[in-house]
């Protein structure tokens, strides 16, 4: 006897799975391929006419290749630095017995919140002739001497500092899934803690480490704020600043050139991700035991020096730029020395109570970043499932495409969004243009990869039989996703969501072109203040933002008891 294909339960399962798969394919294509495709059209066929003029012009320009070389060297070196810092700190803060590690984790990820230009300015002041710190130790360079940070090395240093938390967060999520037996087995075999680290911990941590590195690389490649601040004075061009330069230069065909340059960044980013794929191939990183987290290594007499080192570092990267913000926000005008006589809260009063757009922007930015973070996690958990476990070929390609909107400068993505959504959507005839939704779209497209990388590394570390066991128990895919898979990848997913939230919250470049009245973002308002010469208001608003975000993050600890262990990166 033969049971027909239309066994209803089987059919329903298939429809559910296929529906979810193709829904995801469609969604990711919409978010990643569509804007890129529109840019390709703009680059190669402006106005519908196929033309290689812009392509030829870009390829023939020596500036293109100088910028490409500079982008590559700064991105690679910045990534190496960020990895060294982020990985070391993650290992120390997760595997050793340092005290107050939750507070430390908290402080270490916060600099992601502070806009790169604020960090850049703080560091310029630190190394410049007016540096209070250098004056204190009598090492301040003479007035007018060239700031050493205006250089390739300066850019690399700040990229490394800015993005170390990316490696830190992804690696920490991975380390917390490491069962104690594996470390104890190594120690029992007579290996020293350092040997265990090198031969057991780091090899098993390849997926999160590689994911963090990949994120760092793409972030460094696409960063505009730092090279804009440190590179322009030395005319040190990278691709994002070259693109901005072209855009400012106007002239006919500028969009085509900008589109082609952006695609160039995209290609470099994709090569990086392909390398990542090669590194992860044919190795097994799954952790099959289900025991509790590892007992920390005892640092013994090294504990205090390590703690001091870690905290001074955290203070250097967090407190310094933050103090810069704070001191500027408390003075009536830039350059006025801060003392008891000059200090004023007027800037705060203005941004909090008088300037309606600031408040609106705060609410908008909060809702949009939190919304984008939530949606991205909701997309990434099933997406990672199909990419890693189901090995869906279509999605593996889209996985690469997801890099593009993040790697290119935000202003270019914004232009792509304008090109796409200027006219009302076909069929439904609804226009997203000049609404908050075009920004949400751009956020989803741009930050998808920030959520996806940690989630994928999370999947690589989970033993799939956990899912198969649920399948055998009769649970369909939707139920498995909710009850089994989501809790298992939650630590990685939350790390991703946090990255998205923090990055989107102080984002400027995308919304600078897409905002409309009533849909201001924090970045737009801060930028407006800066542009009008009102750095004091800008600093006050940025300082409030940092404080409120710290408050929000701290408040999550209140309901942390109800979350699975290890989900919040700053809670052990």
């Amino acid at each position, binding site marked *: 006897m033969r049971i027909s294909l239309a066994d209803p339960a089987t059919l329903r399962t298939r429809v559910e799975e296929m529906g979810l798969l193709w829904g995801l394919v469609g969604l990711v294509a919409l978010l990643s391929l569509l804007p890129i495709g529109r840019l390709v059209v703009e680059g190669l066929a402006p106005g519908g006419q196929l033309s290689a003029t812009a392509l030829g012009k870009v390829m023939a320009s020596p500036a293109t290749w100088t910028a490409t070389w500079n982008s590559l060297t700064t991105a690679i070196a910045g990534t190496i630095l960020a990895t060294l810092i982020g990985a070391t700190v993650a290992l120390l803060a997760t595997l050793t017995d340092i005290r107050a590690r939750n507070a430390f984790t908290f402080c270490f990820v916060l600099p992601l919140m502070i806009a790169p230009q604020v960090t850049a300015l703080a560091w310029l002041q630190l190394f410049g002739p007016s540096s209070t710190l250098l004056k204190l130790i009598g090492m301040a360079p003479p007035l007018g001497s060239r700031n050493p940070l205006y250089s390739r090395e300066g850019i690399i240093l700040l990229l490394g500092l800015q993005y170390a938390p990316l490696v830190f967060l992804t690696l920490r999520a991975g380390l917390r899934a490491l069962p104690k037996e594996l470390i104890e087995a190594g120690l029992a075999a007579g290996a020293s803690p350092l040997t265990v680290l090198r031969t057991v911990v780091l090899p098993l941590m390849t997926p999160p480490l590689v994911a963090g590195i990949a994120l760092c690389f793409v972030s460094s490649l696409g960063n505009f704020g730092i090279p804009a601040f440190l590179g322009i004075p030395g*005319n040190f061009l990278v691709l994002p600043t070259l693109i901005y330069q072209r855009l400012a230069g106007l002239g006919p065909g500028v969009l085509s050139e900008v589109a082609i340059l952006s695609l160039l960044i995209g290609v470099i980013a994709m090569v990086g991700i392909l390398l990542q794929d090669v590194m992860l191939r044919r190795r097994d990183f799954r952790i099959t035991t289900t025991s509790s987290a590892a007992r920390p290594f005892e640092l013994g007499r090294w504990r205090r020096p390590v703690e001091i080192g870690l905290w001074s570092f955290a203070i250097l990267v967090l407190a310094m730029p933050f103090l810069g913000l704070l001191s500027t926000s408390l003075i009536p*005008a830039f350059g006025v020395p801060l003392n008891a006589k000059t200090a004023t809260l007027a800037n705060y009063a203005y941004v909090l109570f008088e300037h309606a757009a600031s408040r609106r922007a705060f609410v908008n930015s909060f809702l949009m970043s939190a919304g984008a973070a939530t949606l991205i996690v909701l997309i990434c958990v099933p997406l990672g499932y199909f990419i890693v476990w189901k090995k869906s070929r279509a999605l593996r390609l889209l996985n690469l495409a997801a890099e593009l909107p993040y790697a290119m400068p935000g*202003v270019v993505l914004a232009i792509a969004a304008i090109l796409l959504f200027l006219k009302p959507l076909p069929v439904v005839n609804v226009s997203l243009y000049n609404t908050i939704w075009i920004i949400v779209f751009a956020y989803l497209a741009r930050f998808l990869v920030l959520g996806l990388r940690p989630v994928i590394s999370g999947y690589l570390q989970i033993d799939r039989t956990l899912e198969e066991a649920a399948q055998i128990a009769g649970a369909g895919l939707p139920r498995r996703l909710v009850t089994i898979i989501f809790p298992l990848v939650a630590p990685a997913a939350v790390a991703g969501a946090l990255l998205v939230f923090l990055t989107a919250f102080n984002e400027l470049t995308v919304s*600078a072109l897409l905002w409309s009245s009533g849909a201001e973002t924090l970045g737009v308002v801060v930028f407006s203040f800066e*542009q009008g010469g009102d750095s004091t208001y800008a600093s006050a608003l940025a300082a409030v933002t940092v404080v409120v975000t710290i408050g929000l993050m701290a408040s999550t600890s209140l309901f942390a008891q109800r979350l699975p262990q290890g989900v919040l990166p700053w809670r052990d």
Partner: protein
Amino acid sequence: MTLTRRRFAARGLMMTAALLAAAPAVAQAPTGKLVLYTSQPEKDAAQTTAAFKKAYPNIEVDIFRSGTTEVMGKLSAEISAGQPGADVLLIADAASMEVLKGQNQLLAYPGAKTEGFQPGSFDADKTYFGSKLITTGIAYNTGAKEKPTSWTDLDKPAYKGQISMPSPLYSGAAAIMLSTMTARPDLGWKLFEGLKANEAVAVRGNGAVLKSVASGEKSYGVLVDFMAYNAKKQGSPIDFVFPKEGAPAVTEPVAIIKSTKNEAAAKAFVDFILSDAGQKLALWMGYIPAKPSIGIPSWLPEGTKINVMASDIAAVVKATEADKARFATMFGN
């Protein structure tokens, strides 16, 4: 606690409103929606539209405000997609307007009331009209040892390593300044070679120059007038001079986008900007109005005669690519 400029702003707005109420009523009041793209500082943009609405209460103004590059980027994309979103444009420099004019995107307004404006301040074809003068001079930290009076002072050894300026590669206004100054026989590229020898740094925009000079990171900066004076008024340790050779200027022109669906309202906006009321508003906001008869802002010392460096926009637009390339090689590493 210091009183903020905003308090004055509120009072000032009432004053402008009173001023406007006295303006002659328009025969057929235009109505509908008007979209303005502008790169004015936010408070100025808000005050300009508020005053305009007082004069034309039936027009609803939607505003998009961002940096010049961002505004032009958005507009270019919209033009490329075949649907410019703006009706009127109010941006920093005439060079960008020339580009748009070259792409046939601007609507000529022959009926614009340009009496009393200097011929150089608006386009001969009446497609764009300067609204104010924003000059570029030299700002210096009050702690600086020297007090510059001339552009060529910046080439002196005493200034070595202490100068910042906006990069013409990233700022349209700075690009105009570069081409205007290098076209002058008395300054020319020699000035910039001297700046290079003096290790001047080019930063992204005027805001960055202001910060570096106000904070003392650099002692001298090439900066727009109003930013220096506003900062000074609020207490920043900064002062400003118009160099004796003259100050290059941008005119913050206004223009109507050809595809506008509300031509009447767009023209009303241009009328307003060029009207005495509009010019007085610019003056009150701290700018030098394009119409000389309106007066000069209070921050200018009594009796100052501003010597604006003449500039041929068409020639500037033509020369700008080559000038920027030369600048880039000079100030490269």
